[in-house]
């Protein structure tokens, strides 16, 4: 049986007292977003672009609260310049990124950003951790939440499943 990773990740966020969850919707994050929305201790913040999640995280941390940012790999391209803030001010944001453009991707337009995602994050000095299996996700998130450095946990497309365009 597949581990219930969204529930495990939500528990890891609650344990680390994460109060603010920025997100741009993604099918792979749907259940985790719903769990955060349903948690009275958390504010789930829907963003118009992933870049907003960086400013949100910086403000939250200035105010004493931890936040995470949920997005798909295409969103990593939207955060690049703002992500400099994480390094220059040392803001400990954890990004949880569902991957597109990997093996089995039907939509070839998703491939370039998917392939560039780890390199782009590393170029901005965001630590990259990759979860190839569902049971690896929550431990990696929990570990990242204990660190001072900005970290992205990449969830392989194989874990989420391939988006189908055929009904």
């Amino acid at each position, binding site marked *: 049986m597949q581990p219930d990773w969204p529930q495990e990740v939500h528990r890891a966020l609650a344990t680390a007292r994460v*109060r*603010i969850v920025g997100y741009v919707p993604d099918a792979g994050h749907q259940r985790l977003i719903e769990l955060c929305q349903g948690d009275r201790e958390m*504010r789930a*913040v*829907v*963003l*118009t*672009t992933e*870049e*907003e*999640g*960086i*400013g*949100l*995280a*910086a*403000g*939250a*941390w*200035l*105010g*004493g*609260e*931890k*936040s995470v940012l949920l997005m798909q790999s295409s969103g990593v391209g939207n955060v690049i*310049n*703002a992500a*400099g*803030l994480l390094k*220059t*001010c*040392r*803001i400990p944001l954890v990004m949880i990124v569902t991957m597109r453009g990997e093996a089995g991707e039907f939509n070839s337009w998703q491939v370039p950003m998917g392939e560039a995602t780890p390199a782009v994050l590393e170029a901005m000095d965001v630590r990259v951790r990759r979860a190839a299996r569902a049971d690896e996700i929550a431990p990696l998130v929990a570990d990242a939440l204990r660190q001072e450095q900005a970290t992205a946990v990449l969830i392989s497309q194989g874990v989420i499943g391939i988006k189908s365009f055929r009904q």
Partner: protein
Amino acid sequence: MTLHRRKVVKALLSERGDLLVVAGLGSTSWDITAAGDTPLNFPLWGAMGQAAMVGLGLALAQPKRRVLVITGDGEMLMGMGSLATIGVLQPSNLTLVVIDNERYGETGMQKTHTAHGVDLAGVARACGFKFSKTTSDLKRLRSMIHESTGPNFAVVKVAAEKLPLVLPPLDGVALKDRFRRALLGPQADLD
């Protein structure tokens, strides 16, 4: 009557109490510093377009404190989507003030969209801000910043003038740490 940005910002920040202040990249960071550098200022030196979102994160984390974002028209234009995000969240303790000289002041005074009639207060109103207006009534603005239920938004039109730089500290970690210590006390170093 033409308003001058340094006078406007100084008036908005005088007797500020325990107000938390974020300023956007460029001239507004120099403006809040000219009005008096203090640990509860967070002047951005980068991440153009993010000032409003930094203010939102701060307002959500500190619901009992009043939060003011002072930014320029160019900086606000780059983060216009954040007005929609703030409109959804409805933080009652957040006010954004755009110091609008209709120019990109740091890059050669090129005209911004507001010089061509784009109405930022209209955008904020359409996004659901409780109050949103282009105004020169600084007294009203001060009471809005400290008392009115937000989110609030105001544009203050000012002269396009190149002023001497008044720079805040450059070290981002130092700016963040002094802000957190002033706001959170010893807990700032324990999280």
